[in-house]
């Protein structure tokens, strides 16, 4: 395996994506909104297609803007529906996800029938085409990753409070709504920059899996964030390298499967919260009981 120029780009991009997704995903996870990220990722599709229909060329920043708009719209629609009707979160998320994606397919079909034919490459957004990352993609990815890291450092305490006790946070004067909007905006940014690499469908995986895995290692937000970012980066690196070893392997799925492997390891072997550790503790409790019973007979 030769670390060619392009492979290096992809590697760096995937690592940055992993970090950004890991960080954003942690906040979503802690607010029990992991699946909202899934919906937002799916909702990017109509925005991309609409943007293309309007400007008639594959101008990345414009497409990303379109994606960001519909993604954000989806997130707020879910909240709106849940707060204004009987419908519960799971129904609202599933509804918004599939309807937006449906609109996306309608628009993409229209695009593919347009003058430029079906060479628009928009289909790549559904499944990702990480293996062909241009320098401009990389710049966007690194920008978004750095931005998120910076924001995490700046607003760590505020976001932490906002998540764990929003009422108290408001009470001491924190601009909770604005903090939430900022977090949503950053998540949308990550999604929008990430879908070029792993595609709409697998972007959700990067937002969910590293964060879920990290949760098993600690109860402290700071440690979870760092672990999640680390897992994300590791998945990106593994995925890229492994998929480059054989022709025809899509990078996206392999990155996701790398993340899943890390999750499995965490689920089983993490100290305190991992499966192995818990079953050991159960045995200890049982043994303790046996000892108690044996020594307390009348």
């Amino acid at each position, binding site marked *: 395996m030769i670390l060619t120029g392009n492979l290096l780009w992809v590697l760096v991009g995937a690592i940055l994506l992993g970090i950004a997704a890991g960080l954003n995903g942690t906040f979503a996870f802690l607010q029990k909104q992991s699946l909202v990220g*899934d919906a937002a990722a799916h909702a990017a599709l109509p925005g991309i297609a609409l943007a293309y229909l309007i400007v008639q060329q594959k101008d990345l920043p414009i497409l990303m803007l379109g994606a960001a708009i519909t993604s954000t719209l989806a997130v707020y629609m879910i909240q709106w529906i849940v707060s204004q*009707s009987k*419908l519960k979160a799971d129904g609202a998320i*599933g509804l918004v996800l*599939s309807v937006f994606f*449906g609109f996306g397919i*309608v628009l993409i079909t*229209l695009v593919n029938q347009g003058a430029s034919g079906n060479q628009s490459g928009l289909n790549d957004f559904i499944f990702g085409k990480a293996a062909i990352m241009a320098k401009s993609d990389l710049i966007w990815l690194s920008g978004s990753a750095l931005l998120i890291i910076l924001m995490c450092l700046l607003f760590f305490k505020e976001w932490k409070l906002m998540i764990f006790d929003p009422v108290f946070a408001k009470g001491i004067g924190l601009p909770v709504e604005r903090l939430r909007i900022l977090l949503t905006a950053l998540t949308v940014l990550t999604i929008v920059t990430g879908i070029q690499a792993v595609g709409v469908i697998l972007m959700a995986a990067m937002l969910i899996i590293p964060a*879920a895995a990290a949760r098993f290692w600690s109860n402290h937000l700071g440690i979870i964030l760092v672990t999640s970012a680390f897992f994300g980066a590791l998945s990106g690196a593994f995925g890229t390298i492994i998929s480059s070893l054989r022709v025809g392997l899509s990078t996206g799925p392999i990155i996701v499967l790398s993340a899943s492997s890390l999750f499995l390891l965490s689920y089983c072997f993490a100290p305190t919260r991992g499966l192995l550790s818990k079953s050991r503790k159960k045995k200890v409790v049982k043994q303790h009981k046996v000892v108690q019973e044996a020594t307390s007979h009348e």
Partner: protein
Amino acid sequence: MNEFWVILTGSLVGITCGLTGVFLILRKTAMIADAISHTVLFGIVVAFMITQSLNGFWMLVGAAIAGILTTYLVQVLQTGGLQEDAAIGVVFTTLFALGILFITLFAGNVHLDVEHVLMGEITFVPWDTWNVFGLTMPKAVWMLLIVLLLNVLYLVFLYKEIKLSTFDPVFALSIGLPIVAMHYSYMTLVSLTTVAAFDSVGAVLVVAMLIGPAAAAYLMSKSVPGMIAWSMTIGVTAAITGYYLAKLWNTSIAGMMAAMIGVLFMLVFLLKPHDGWLWKVLKQIKLKNVNAS
């Protein structure tokens, strides 16, 4: 004539998914259904890998197993301490990625392309026919009819049980209802429904059809039978209007049907008397005017 089959298929998807979707919404398992619609891909690929055939029957078997596996894995992860939404997310993305990987590794040269899975090919439905008891109809229609029958039978025999285990699982368990078996059996039914539908309309539309009409019906109904009736009606309406609009604008039929589901839901959400958002807004405006004067 071909158009007739296409519309019939779409309508059957609307009716069947509308029916299945009712208890998905009531049981708050909409996202597990979304997960299953993605993991059936994995089930189908594995079925193909084992049987080396694209036979519809084995696809159903693969899908059913994928559905049960998904439900089971989500349960296992939850018991291991992971919150439900993340459990769903981890399981379905992993199995989906695995499914895509298997396709590229083992089935790359077969007509199992992923776009077809996502969006279906409803226009090709009339050409793929089965002959059963002398009656020749498109395979998709047969599969949907069978699954519709399964759904109906399930509800006819187990209506009380699914209703109670949904409404009050704690009480249900106290009278000896096997609520775990109800959960798994229902998810299996969902998997079968998904596979029957998505050969023609794809995974995207199936999710929309399972969740959307039932969600809208949920907002409208005061009883479960009412909810079922509304859900099936909205499903069919979305299918038919989606078809004709797609024809009119020359775009994806499955996508348009999903879009129409969204439109119909929004209509209910906004306009339902007393509960609709617009009604509530108008009421507030009226109140303000009354107070002002």
